[in-house]
């Protein structure tokens, strides 16, 4: 579904991704693990076109197009979604208003009728309840004053409403308590429909207990050095990243 070939990317003067190859398959959940600084966040930023990352070589093909040449909003309108590791706060911007605007932008792009305010509120309320979020999430300002757990749920809320096809979850489980983790995982699982692909970046295996990953990739020194099934996680837990290093 999305094919990343020989991706070289740098942040500032430092090259972080050094020829990364990864194929994200339709209907599958791909997990990326790796030590700090290996390039996991850089990979997610490269896919969505973050201004910090400069792609120097390689391509990311999706829907027959090289995504690297597209603006961030174009990539989003084409169905790429990133749940940020640290979602930023934007004071004064109403949460519901923002989300409806994003949904309308997507509908406009697809040539579909735009959801009106009343219908949108119904939709939002339904999802908020499902995610165990407080009803005032509708009227608060975007992430403004939200706790870590609230911010992550808000990211999943956006995902459920925007219905993207390529979903990147950057450490979606960090800082969550059990209840929040459950809600977030349920949200992700609800999105599994055999057509979407998921790229889950994580440090801890906790969330993997709730999702059923199909592939586990280890990112080291800017490249994918090993790919395996869920059993790879158990090995990592038991022996740490050195076990993999020895292997190579």
């Amino acid at each position, binding site marked *: 579904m999305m094919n990343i070939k020989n991706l070289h990317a740098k942040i500032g003067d430092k090259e972080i991704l050094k020829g990364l190859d990864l194929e994200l398959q339709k209907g599958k959940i791909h997990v990326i693990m790796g030590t700090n600084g290996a390039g996991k966040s850089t990979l997610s930023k490269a896919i*969505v076109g*973050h*201004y910090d990352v400069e792609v120097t070589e390689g391509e990311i093909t999706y829907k027959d197009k090289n995504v690297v040449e597209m*603006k*961030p*909003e174009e*990539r*989003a*309108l084409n169905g790429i*979604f*990133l749940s*940020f590791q640290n*979602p*930023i706060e*934007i*004071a*004064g*911007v109403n949460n519901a208003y*923002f*989300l409806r*605007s*994003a949904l309308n*932008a*997507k509908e406009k*792009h697809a040539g579909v009728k735009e959801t009106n305010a009343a219908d949108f509120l119904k939709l939002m309320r339904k999802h908020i309840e499902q995610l165990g979020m407080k009803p005032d999430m509708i009227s608060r*300002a*975007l992430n403004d004053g939200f706790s870590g757990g609230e911010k992550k749920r808000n990211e999943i809320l*956006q995902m459920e409403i*925007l219905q993207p096809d390529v979903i990147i979850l950057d450490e979606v489980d960090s800082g969550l308590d059990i209840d929040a983790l459950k809600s977030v995982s349920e949200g992700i699982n609800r999105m599994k429909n055999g057509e979407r692909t998921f790229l889950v970046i994580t440090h801890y295996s906790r969330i993997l207990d709730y999702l059923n990953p199909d592939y586990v990739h280890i990112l080291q020194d800017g490249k994918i050095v090993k790919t395996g099934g869920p059993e790879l996680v158990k090995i990592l837990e038991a022996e740490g990243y050195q076990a993999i290093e020895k292997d190579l």
Partner: protein
Amino acid sequence: MAQEEVNKILSQEYKLGFSVDVEADTAPPGLNENVLRFISAKKDEPEWMLDLRVKALRKWQTMREPHWAQLDYVPIDYQSISYFSAPKKAPNSLDEVDEKILEAYAKLGIPLQEQKMLQGIAIDAVFDSVSVKTTYSKTLMELGIIFCSISEAMREHPELVKKYMFSVVPMSDNYFAALNAAVFTDGTFVYVPKGVRCPMELSTYFRINAKNTGQFERTLIIVDEGGYVSYNEGCSAPQRDEHQLHAAVVELITHKNAEIKYSTIQNWYPGDETGKGGIYNFVTKRGLCEGENSKISWTQVETGSSITWKYPSCVLKGDNSVGEFYSVAVTSKAQQADTGTKMIHIGKNTRSTIVSKGISAMRGQNSYRGLVKISPSASGARNFSQCDSLLIGPNCGAHTFPYLESQNSSAQIEHEATTSKISDEQLFYLRQRGLSEEDGVSMIVHGFCKEVFSQLPMEFAVEAKELLNLTLEGSVG
């Protein structure tokens, strides 16, 4: 952010730039006692008003024009301005108002026909220097509320005018106040009697039409004990090459337990990218909280005019009185704004709140200049100010100059200010959710201004938001 894209967003064409060809009665350019007589005669004023005008002119001739360091403008030639321009046909009812004028107002979206009013807003439209029929005056009269032009008030309610005019902004107050006192032509007069809450928004719409005329209106609003009124002032002007001067004076007085909410949405022609043309907006606005527990709040959205120089102020005389100032000032192209407020605390336990949001783009220069002064008598006074500036692009400027003075040990002043550009992170977040750069910038800017917009009466909040969009969004509407 690609700078060219942002510049496109900001330089959208001024939508309201058209003029109307109407037979006008225009005074020859120049400022002298004869012009004053001409104006006074044209308006059929009582003798005492002409005397006051002459006194003001003489005062003005002894004063020196002030110059603020931050503003840079072509000097004004006071003798080349015509101080009076009135459409020739004076109307008695809306039916008699010149068709072309009605059309001009329709183009601006201002409904003058009573029957067609959906919003229930009473409007007094000032076209060049004359108040074109005030709507709803009969309805208000039944409540004892006087809402008419200053000229009419001089004739019908001279005792009120004599008592209150110049009581808050005396003619000697500053250069432009003296000029205005001499040549003011018209404006709005409002009087709300004891205990009456004005049931509708009162609004005045100004428009400067004829070439080389300055607009010198004078507004006087008095609210007696326990009364309330919400008043809105909006403006627009056609595109002209020569600078036009707008030197208005607004005086507000609240007696015990009274309240005035004064909102301005200002969209004068800003001049072009080089700073040519555009309105000079030099205004003196002051509110006197004369009575205990009274309140005056100023809310302004300034997006137009070439040069803005105004400091709506509150003199908090009555104990427990409250003064508020909420402002969004946008400078783009080559606009310059030096605006802010003065909160003078005199009574005990007085409170003032200042929220100023400045947005500078292209080569705009935006300065906040505020004074919070606590006199020795103002025990227990409290002030809070928040002044934030948003910079869009590398060629603009945002400056904050607060003057904080306290002479009372039990008073408290708190001032905070931040200056930044639109956060790359915030903009990226919105774009990752599918919003275009233009929409993202707009959303963030609206969020930035939200606190101020929420102070506007609902009907005008919508207009203000659209005006902000107009000033910041890309394509011509």
